[in-house]
């Protein structure tokens, strides 16, 4: 019924209104006729009738108000009125829309990243019941894999999860040869129930079957969608195709779906049975457990159970398993966790930018409404409800916000592209962001919120307007005291709000600066690196070899690599070349081992320290620029003599008296026969895990093939790139040459996440500063404009232009000071939240706070200065005549 009436009233508004008019006028005329019949003068009768009725228009208005759809009708009127008002002052409208578009656009862009990366559930079946099970080995390894034996035991004993699967923690690589150029591919291994637990299905072919979890299973691989596309151009007949990996042949049985961004997304998956290691041992921690909680089981119960299972393993295998902890946590996207802090900081920054934008708009609206005071007072006098007036002003500000939001979405679309391009390469941010309906909804909600926030203050001012005073006042009042206080409050809050992101950006940029000052441990300039991995000798063959044969193999590989080094060193512009198996500044554990020191109690029950193990060629330290501190660097014959170099961190921790050289260390203490290595030299510390990571204990061996080739050049290292690759391919055409980059680029990449968050926070802080400056400028101009009269009087009474300038600037400076103090207190409270993202500076770093406070005050005063200059030029005669 209501709908029908509303539709009729709105659709046929003209007709409905005409009928109402005829009806009410008819009533008046009939009343007049009555009066004439009663003897009233015909001319007087109609007037009397109308008076008795209380006004024809008023009757009509009251009748309209009760009609269905009246709200919508007046809303439409408000919108049209608002649109007309906005069109009338295009300058104001453009500034307001642009300001809001910047604020809303920045928020939409950051939110669409947050939504895609953090909020969207993992693309698996019922992801909320999936958990990960890890080991830890504190303090050095907070997160590590499970041993194959523990995984088997726990898989059989657990009762809180419906099924438990595992995949290899550290991806490995293999050389793909045969079809086209040799290529290095990333491999991972998984149990047959791994994909079913996740609910991942192949697009073609099939995945693993349980039989393939056992050693010696058929050599098969499953391809990732991405690799299928890049290497095989999505050919459907790839199933059944045979690929050669490290010289062994594997049959492709299936391809994963496109949307399957599994874990580190390797190029290929193999069944667990192909993992060339003993699957019952408890020494090597190579697997990550994943499991699905049984229905109704809480993660805490599963955690308690796995802690009990872990304790049982420690009792059953005291030598191997003691001191391992267990971590049970909801399944998560590892790269998302890495981005979390950065994204939340950015979200906070853009939130503040938006608040400043709101303050600006509120100010603009206040200013404009002040000049509309008379119009508003007039409408009130003519019977407009105040509620209606407030609603109309709110409609106007929401309209502004929606227009700003529409433009903001365009900004956001561009911004997201820029974000994706700026983001560190390994984050694959651009590939992850797919804005959807949630983002749109977010933007719409933000627009309404912004509209209300901007419009509420100015609208509530209307309520306070005194009709009589407003009507009596001239065209320009001197500005009521209350409204001036409101303007000042807005300026103060803008300064306070802008200070927070500025301090955040300052702290992050100083951290980045300090980090880049940090010595990586090697000389990065003029150093080229490339990955030239040799096909691995199959584990099965290695096991069959005697130690002497293994030694021979290593020697052969050393010689092959030495040949490459010699040839590369012969190239023009090359000073030297050397090899290492794992580059510094890595992101995950690659090669490390527990160790014991000869002659000291073997800490069987205690925490055994862990050293990073690196294999290098003899010339590595001089080529990489790692300083030799004591003893000598490794030489070719040290491979057979079991000699090692260690880094300073290890030497000073375990041999504080400086007697490390000559001591012996074993890295296979868990075997029956320890294998002792003698320390012959001490080299400088190298940052193995990023410039911000604490130094590790590093041990250098020389032995066999080292896949990372380092080339020290006389000039731009990139010029050597092609020549070096040609030399390598002349020696062995099957060697893939990948990951070619300078060590400068490696250092830059390692700080890329920090640079990303620091630069973006900086950009948003600059935006906040700009908006705040515009806001302050606007308010001060307005206040000066309103005080023209007063300034004229002052000047007429003998004030000098300088005094006037001073008057305005001091006013602005006072506001700036209050804002800076409030903002500094807020920043102090908030900065602790980013303390984990800082390096080398404290969250309350006085220098950062001082510089930011000075900068902001300077900008605020500069923003006052322009209106102050204008005030200075006021001609007292003109100003006084102004009214």
């Amino acid at each position, binding site marked *: *019924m*209501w709908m029908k*009436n509303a539709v009729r009233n709105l659709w046929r508004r003209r007709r409905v209104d005409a*009928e*109402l008019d*005829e*009806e*009410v006028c*008819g*009533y008046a*005329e*009939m*009343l007049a*006729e*009555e009066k004439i019949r009663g003897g009233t003068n015909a001319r007087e009768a109609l007037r009397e009738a109308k008076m008795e*009725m*209380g006004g024809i228009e*008023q*009757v*009509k208005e*009251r*009748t309209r*108000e*009760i*009609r*269905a759809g009246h709200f919508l009708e007046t809303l439409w009127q408000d919108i049209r009125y608002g649109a007309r008002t906005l069109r009338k002052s295009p300058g104001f409208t453009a500034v307001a829309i642009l300001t809001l578009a910047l604020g809303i656009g920045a928020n939409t862009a950051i939110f669409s990243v947050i939504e895609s990366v953090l909020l969207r559930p993992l693309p698996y079946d019922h992801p909320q019941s999936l958990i990960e099970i890890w080991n830890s080995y504190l303090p050095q390894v907070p997160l590590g894999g499970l041993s194959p034996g523990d995984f088997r035991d726990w898989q059989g004993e657990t009762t809180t999860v419906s099924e438990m699967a595992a995949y290899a923690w550290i991806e490995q690589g293999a050389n793909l040869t045969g079809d086209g150029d040799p290529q290095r591919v990333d491999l991972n291994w998984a149990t047959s129930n791994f994909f079913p637990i996740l609910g991942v299905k192949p697009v073609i072919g099939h995945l693993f079957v349980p039989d393939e979890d056992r050693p010696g299973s058929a050599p098969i691989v499953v391809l990732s969608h991405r690799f299928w596309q890049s290497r095989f151009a999505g050919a459907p007949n790839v199933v059944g195709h045979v690929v050669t990996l490290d010289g062994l042949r594997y049959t492709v049985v299936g391809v994963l779906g496109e949307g399957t961004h599994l874990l580190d997304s390797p190029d290929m998956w193999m069944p667990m049975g192909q993992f060339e290691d003993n699957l019952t041992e408890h020494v090597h921690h190579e697997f990550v457990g994943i499991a699905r909680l049984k229905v109704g089981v809480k993660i805490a119960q599963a955690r308690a159970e796995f802690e009990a299972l872990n304790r049982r393993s420690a009792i059953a295998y005291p030598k191997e398993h003691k001191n391992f902890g267990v971590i049970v946590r909801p399944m998560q996207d590892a790269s998302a966790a890495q981005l979390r802090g950065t994204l939340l900081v950015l979200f906070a920054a853009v939130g503040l930018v938006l608040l400043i934008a709101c303050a600006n708009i509120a100010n603009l609206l206040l200013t404009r409404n002040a000049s509309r005071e008379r119009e508003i007072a007039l409408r009130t006098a003519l019977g407009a409800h105040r509620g209606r007036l407030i609603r109309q002003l709110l409609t106007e500000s929401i309209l502004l916000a929606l227009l700003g939001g529409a433009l903001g979405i365009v900004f956001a679309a561009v911004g997201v592209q820029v974000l994706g391009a700026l983001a560190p390469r390994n984050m694959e941010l651009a590939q992850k962001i797919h804005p959807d309906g949630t983002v749109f909804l977010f933007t719409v909600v933000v627009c309404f919120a912004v509209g209300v926030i901007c419009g509420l203050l100015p609208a509530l001012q209307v309520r306070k307007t005194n009709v009589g005073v407003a009507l009596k006042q001239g065209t320009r009042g001197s500005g009521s005291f209350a409204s001036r206080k409101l303007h000042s409050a807005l300026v103060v809050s803008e300064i306070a709000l802008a200070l927070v992101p500025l301090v955040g950006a300052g702290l992050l940029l100083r951290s980045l600066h300090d980090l880049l000052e940090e010595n990586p441990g090697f000389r990065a300039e003029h150093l080229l690196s490339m990955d030239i991995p040799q096909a691995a000798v199959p584990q099965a063959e290695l096991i069959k070899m005697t130690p002497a044969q293994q030694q021979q193999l290593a020697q052969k590989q050393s010689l092959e690599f030495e040949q490459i080094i010699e040839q590369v060193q012969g190239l023009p512009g090359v000073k030297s070349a050397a090899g290492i198996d794992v580059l510094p500044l890595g992101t995950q554990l690659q090669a490390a081992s527990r160790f014991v020191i000869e002659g000291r109690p073997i800490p069987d029950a205690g925490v055994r320290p862990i050293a990073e193990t690196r294999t290098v060629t003899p010339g590595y330290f001089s080529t990489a620029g790692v300083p030799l501190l004591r003893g000598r660097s490794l030489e070719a014959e040290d491979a057979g003599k079991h000699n090692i170099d260690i880094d300073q961190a290890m030497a000073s921790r375990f041999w504080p008296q400086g007697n490390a050289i000559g001591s012996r260390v074993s890295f296979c203490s868990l075997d029956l026969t320890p294998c002792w290595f003698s320390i012959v030299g001490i080299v400088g510390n190298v940052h193995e895990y990023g410039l911000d990571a604490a130094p590790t204990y590093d041990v250098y061996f020389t032995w066999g093939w080292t896949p990372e080739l380092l080339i020290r050049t006389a000039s731009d290292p990139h010029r050597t790139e092609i020549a070096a690759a040609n030399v390598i391919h002349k020696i062995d055409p099957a060697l893939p040459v990948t990951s070619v980059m300078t060590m400068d680029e490696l250092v830059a990449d390692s700080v890329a996440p920090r640079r990303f968050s620091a630069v973006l926070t900086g950009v948003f802080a600059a935006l906040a500063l700009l908006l705040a400056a515009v806001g302050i400028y606007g308010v001060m101009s307005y206040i000066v404009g309103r005080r023209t009269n007063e300034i004229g009087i002052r000047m007429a009474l003998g004030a000098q232009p300088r005094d006037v300038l001073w008057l305005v600037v001091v006013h602005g400076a006072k506001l700036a000071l209050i804002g800076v103090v409030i903002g500094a207190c807020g920043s102090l409270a908030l900065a602790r939240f980013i303390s984990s993202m800082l390096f080398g500076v404290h969250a309350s770093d006085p220098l950062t706070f001082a510089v930011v406070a000075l900068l902001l005050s300077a900008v605020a005063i500069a923003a006052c200065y322009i209106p102050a200059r204008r005030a200075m030029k006021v001609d007292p005669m003109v100003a006084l005549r102004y009214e």
Partner: protein
Amino acid sequence: MGRSQTELLQGTLDMLILKVLAIGEMHGLGISRRIAQVTRGTFEVKPGSLFPALHRMEEEGWLRSSWGESESNRRARYYQLTRKGRRQLQSEAKRWERISLAIERALGA
């Protein structure tokens, strides 16, 4: 003026309009005059209340309106009860009886 009082008056006005229209169709001024007549001048319904009430009741579906000729040959809008309006009159009258009975008792006690 308190809200409850307005509502009571509004309810009363609705009932009075329904009651006078139960006799036959009538235009606005006619309804107003008739109400004054039957209540012996206790209720003077002003057009500012009458027209909103009529339009609201029409939207509720209690009344139906049509254009016709007045006594003085003027085009006027005539209102008449619908079936729904009659039912509404009955229930309003019952409700009113209950209220007035209760109030009478309360005052007489």
